[in-house]
């Protein structure tokens, strides 16, 4: 039952006001700035260039390479997180021996500061003093260029992302698995369905809505990646691992190119919106069919 009491305004307005003031207002501010040519160093008075910043950006190869790098990291990392996370969640749900012990350990990484995790990763991936180097040198692979070669560095960043965020997938999928009705499985047992058939015929389709939500959240969050890359490679070598947020930071905070950076962040927003809407549109028919 919904009540209607004037006091409801007292309840909701503080939150609305804070969000309006801190997130909508800067948005308006940077939207208008993105149409200006405006630099602080060297100081040039603002001049209206309309879509000029956007046009420059779309012709800038560095923008496209940052967009590509971010997309690559996000999609590969989330794919691996989902595969590993779902697998571990299934195992935990089936009461694998020692399951209780695993739970705390499995939860840990997602609560740790990405900056600290990235520092730890730098130690692990150190080509001379790191434990990974020692382990691999037993197989004859000595002093691999983990963070100094573009492809290797990208792979390392993806590995760190998978390490840190798979726990989130495990947590969500585990919660989802526990809501599944048991009688369907009992019926399947009577039909002598194999474990493999049960998974693809029952578990996977029934977990599809939750899977969709988890992958969506992770994908959007992965696109924001910045701190891990900032500490691990700083975008290097060259600009091989530069992500969109890092690119915007370099332009805005190092060069103080205000109009350009605002346009860049709006292009980023547009890109995220396109990806989100496409994802939902692609998935909708599947989700509705199963209902």
């Amino acid at each position, binding site marked *: 039952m919904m009540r209607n009491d004037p006091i409801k305004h007292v309840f909701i307005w503080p939150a609305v006001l804070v969000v309006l003031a801190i997130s909508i207002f800067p948005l308006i501010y940077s939207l208008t700035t993105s149409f200006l040519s405006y630099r602080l160093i060297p100081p040039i008075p603002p001049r209206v260039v309309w879509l000029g910043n956007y046009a420059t950006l779309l012709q800038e190869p560095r923008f496209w390479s940052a967009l590509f790098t971010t997309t690559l990291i996000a999609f590969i990392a989330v794919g691996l997180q989902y595969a590993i996370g779902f697998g571990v969640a*299934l195992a935990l749900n089936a009461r694998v021996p020692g399951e209780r012990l695993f739970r705390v350990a499995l939860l840990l990484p997602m609560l740790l500061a990405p900056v600290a995790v990235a520092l730890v990763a730098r130690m692990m991936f150190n080509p001379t003093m790191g434990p990974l180097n020692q382990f691999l040198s037993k197989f004859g692979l000595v002093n691999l260029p983990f963070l100094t070669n573009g492809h290797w560095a990208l792979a390392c960043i993806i590995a760190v992302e998978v390490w840190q965020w798979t726990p989130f997938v495990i947590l969500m999928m585990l919660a989802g698995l526990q809501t599944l009705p048991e009688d369907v499985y009992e019926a399947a047992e009577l039909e002598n369905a194999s474990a493999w058939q049960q998974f693809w015929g029952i578990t996977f389709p029934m977990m599809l809505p939750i899977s969709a939500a988890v992958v969506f959240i992770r994908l959007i969050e992965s696109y924001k990646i910045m701190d891990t890359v900032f500490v691990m490679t700083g975008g290097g070598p060259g600009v091989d691992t530069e992500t969109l947020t890092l690119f915007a930071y370099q332009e805005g905070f190092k060069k103080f190119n205000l109009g350009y950076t605002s346009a860049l962040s709006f292009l980023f927003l547009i890109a995220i919106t396109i990806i989100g809407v496409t994802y939902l549109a692609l998935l909708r028919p599947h989700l509705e069919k199963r209902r």
Partner: protein
Amino acid sequence: MSGQGLTGLPQWSRRLVAVGVLAWCLITVFPLYWVVVTAFKTPPGVVGGPTYLPFIDFTPTLQPFIDLYQGIRGEFFRTFLNSTIVGLSAAAIATAIGAMAAYALVRFEFKVRLGAGLVFFLLALGGYLLFNATFGFTRSQALLLAFPIALIAAVVANRLPLPGPILGNEDILFWFVSQRMFPPIVTAFALYLLYSEIGRLGFQLIDSYVGLTLCYVAFSLPIVVWLMRDFFEAIPIEVEEAAMVDNVPSWRIFIGIVVPMSMNGLLATFMITLAFVWNEFLFALFLTNSRWQTLPILVAGQNSQRGDEWWAISAAALVAIVPMMIMAGLLSRMMRSGLLLGAIK
């Protein structure tokens, strides 16, 4: 719950699955073990190659932590304090006002006309441009003037019979949660410009407690509202109805009945928000420079300042990590009661 997936498997493949989970667990734990060990090593112990077991492979020392405390590698003590103060207060404020908003969205009916929303946006944007370009106010003055005007106009417009769809509680909730989708760089950079312009009016927000906390409150609110709504929906409404029959005012129902009943949820939400603020990097990077620097910034600066001094870097990373490790232990206890179950529906 045993019927799902594994009972059909023979014994050997059950073992295989267990080994797989164990392998993932080792991958998860090993890097953490590595930081802990490295933090107690001496410089020669690190450079000499990887060693694993304290007292057998190397002799542990407390020197990295003593260096840290004495401020040889940056003012760790004060930064730790900053992080704690900002984290606790931002999480507390966000949980409080977020819970209020979530409760309002669950129990009261709201109607917002889409037209009123448009009025707000157009007036804010137009008013800002008008004040700035025509009347010669500075950019921040123009924004601060346009904001209340647009807000009042939108509230008035909501009473008028404007054409267009009427948005309900679900839409307001979606608006809150969608704030989380925005790439933070969009707002972080704009907020930095806005704060520095307000600073020129004589009210310092950059590198200040108020500025940083306010920003963290705003960016935690979407999560808080989202999580708390599920907890409040799970509370049986009969208790509140009984209180209403006795004419207990709504705010006393909220504080006296609803809050105590959802204490677990509030606590979990508070901890999740605290973790988010504690680990946050981008906003702190833009909005602080010395006095109110937080731990992630100081920790991130470690490797660029002095190169690969892993013993000290490990100790620094450990300071940032350990409070959250303790919280993970606490959270996992609550998780057992299916706490986050509602959040994903």
